[in-house]
């Protein structure tokens, strides 16, 4: 059996955080995709040429970034979940 890398607390923390990250970044990506006006200040528009199409493009790009980040959190979640299972099995065998 491979010994776990993270401790039980760290892996629990990481898996909770990644669930949060998956849900929240997934939804944020959706809201960027539908171009929610309340998020207009959150897209990178420092040197905006003022056209509508560029704003749309930025929105969609940010949405994609969010989804990729959510994907990274999925990977992190699987990793920390496996770690947690290893710990619970180890503690089960101990007792």
């Amino acid at each position, binding site marked *: 059996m491979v010994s776990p890398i993270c401790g039980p607390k760290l892996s629990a923390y990481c898996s909770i955080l990644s669930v949060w*990250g998956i849900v929240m*970044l997934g939804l944020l990506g959706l809201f960027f995709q539908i171009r929610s006006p*309340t998020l207009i200040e*959150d897209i*990178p528009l420092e040197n*905006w040429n003022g056209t509508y199409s560029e704003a749309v493009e930025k929105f969609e790009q940010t949405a994609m*970034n969010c989804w*990729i980040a959510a994907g*990274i*959190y999925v990977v992190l979640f699987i990793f920390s979940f496996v770690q947690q299972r290893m710990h619970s099995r180890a503690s089960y065998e101990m007792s």
Partner: protein
Amino acid sequence: MGSLLRSEEMTLCQLFLQSEAAYTCVSELGELGLVQFRDLNPDFNAFQRKFVNEIRRCEEMERKLRFLEKEIKKDGIPMLDTGDNPDAPAPREMIDLEATFEKLENEMKEVNSNSEALKKNYLELTELKHILRKTQTFFDEAEFQHQAMHDPYLGEETMGLLGEESQRSGQPLRLGFVAGVIGREKIPAFERMLWRACRGNVFLRQAEIDKAMEDPVTGDQVLKSVFIIFFQGDQLKSRVKKICEGFRATLYPCPETQSERREMSIGVMTRIEDLNTVLGQTGDHRHRVLVAAAKNIKVWFIKVRKIKAIYHTLNMFNLDVTQKCLIAECWCPFADLDRIQQALQRGTERSGSSVPSILNRMSTKQEPPTYNRNNKLTQGFQNLVDAYGVASYREINPAPFTIISFPFLFAVMFGDMGHGLIMFLFALWMVIREKQLQAKKIDNEIWSTFFGGRYIILLMGAFSMYTGFIYNDVFSKSLNLFGCQCDKDYTPASLDNNQHLQLNPNGSYTGTPYAIGLDPIWSVALNKIAFTNSLKMKTSIILGVSQMMFGVALSFLNHRYFQRPMNIICEFIPQVIFLFCMFGYLCILIFHKWTHYTSDMAGNAPSLLIGAINMFLFNYPKHSKLIYSGQPGFQGFLVVIAVLCVPWMLLVKPFLLRYQARYGQPFDFADVMINQGIHTIEYCLGCISHTASYLRLWALSLAHAQLSEVLWTMVMRLGFMFDGFIAPFMLVIVFFFWAGATVIILVVMEGLSAFLHALRLHWVEFQSKFYKGEGYMFQPFSYEHILDHGGEEN
């Protein structure tokens, strides 16, 4: 099931227990946990009571059990906690228990002293082993040096004066030596001391022992060094020995010749091996004894504590003149008298006594204790109330109202759907896994505070989601669930090359309001704070005045229950009128302004704050905007009524009391007057300052909303600002920090501050209107309580 509104009806009872049945009866009552015994011998000290000896024996048993527990913990043997709850053993079983513990303790002590002696022996032998091994090199070196030192000397002076050189060269200088072991940290000081005391005439060699050794007494691991000191002459020898003694170095006899040393070394090795097997056997024996004890120790603890609690209670009883029966006095809930009777009957049967125990109700003038039956949900809120003061007997208990109003006022300050959800989920986890978490018995103060308040946190989280929904805030962002009601037809074409578009509320508003809560358009508005401030301030005033009004209304229920009609006429009615004239009227105006002014008229709507100031100054400037005609007259009338209420509250009751006491009863008019004056001033000033105090609802809500917005713009927004393939990774990292800061700062810290403010609003602003809190808690004699608190009792 009694109601939570008022505490249980209590009654004082007298118990007559046959002396042979007393023990079992009290034991049954302890299992029941519904009776609070009164100490009938308060003048006796602990040593003058009847069952001193029994209590002393129990304490002795407890001491032995604690000793065993300590030994078990030292060996890391898990103690079996089956969770079963044995009945208190009969008094005669006490002797058996005592014998068992005595035997175990003696056995343990013997094993310990044996193993200590063995370990000491073992340590000495290992030290000797190391000495023999390490000193070998020293002797070799010394011999070599010796020769190197003497050969040139011999070469130079070929012939000695006395002709003894041949003899000297044959055998080396006769050097004495001592060898021993010393703690490694003492070496430098030891060396210096030797050098100074012997003027550099001794030769010290030392080597570190690699493995740490166990100190047999303390069990610590100690690092040690082997040393050997060469010297010449007896004087130096005694001096060196003294120094060694002073430094607590252990000296060992070390044979001079190599063959002897080898022989000794072999002897030591065999002895160490023997010792090892003996030590192992001792350890096994100790382990066996402790494992057997660990199985039962929890049950033993429970038994001993129960016996002790029973005798402790019996000590509070009075002895009848005939010495045949014990008399006890106790408080118990009126509704539970039947169950207590049954318990007494069971106790009597168990003891085999033929005479039944008698429970006799007594009438008394003493104030009974306050007892509220709570379940696990209401208990947390009851604790919040009790922390301020335990309700007087049968007074209205604010806890049932607090269950709703506390989380709600908290949520007004903490309104955010996201933060509320985090809090709610955390509490939900604690509630669902309640049993497992309870069984873990985590002994951490912070954790037990959170765990104890899990239902409070659960409700606070749920209510925060609701208020967050009304404020339309999720992590400082808004949701457009019902369709924004602010519409202007901008097309993509009109947005091109036009960075400054504006929405004027007059014209873009569709006319029908957003279905529930705040319109999401406000989240992008520049004057968002100005708008929400006005909204939240008004809501705070309305919530505050209604809660205070409710508190005053509860005082009416108290006056009626305790049959004090004078308080209704002289306090309750003027209080209601006073509060209504000053702030109830203001609330009506707030509702009026909300419903009767549209966005077109926003420019010339009257200011309520200025209006309220004008009302109290009777000053209405020409250009001031009036809400309705006849406003100055009506408002003036309200102020006059409110002012008239003050003498009504202040004077009527004292004079009425004096009138009632005109036939010679003792009556201290000044005292009553001062008391009434204090209450009146407190109420009148309180109404004003408490209303202002409720504005904290707005202030904290504003602070929370702003802080979460700042966190979003300063941290989370950074994550969106990157380009290229690095962007998602940066987003992952930024989210990580943002999430951490959200939980620590916004949920935990802000949550605590909002909690404290909500608590204050309940303790001061709400409860001061009706709650006395001068009672004392009902503390029944209950095993459950005693065992949970580790047997500490007073």
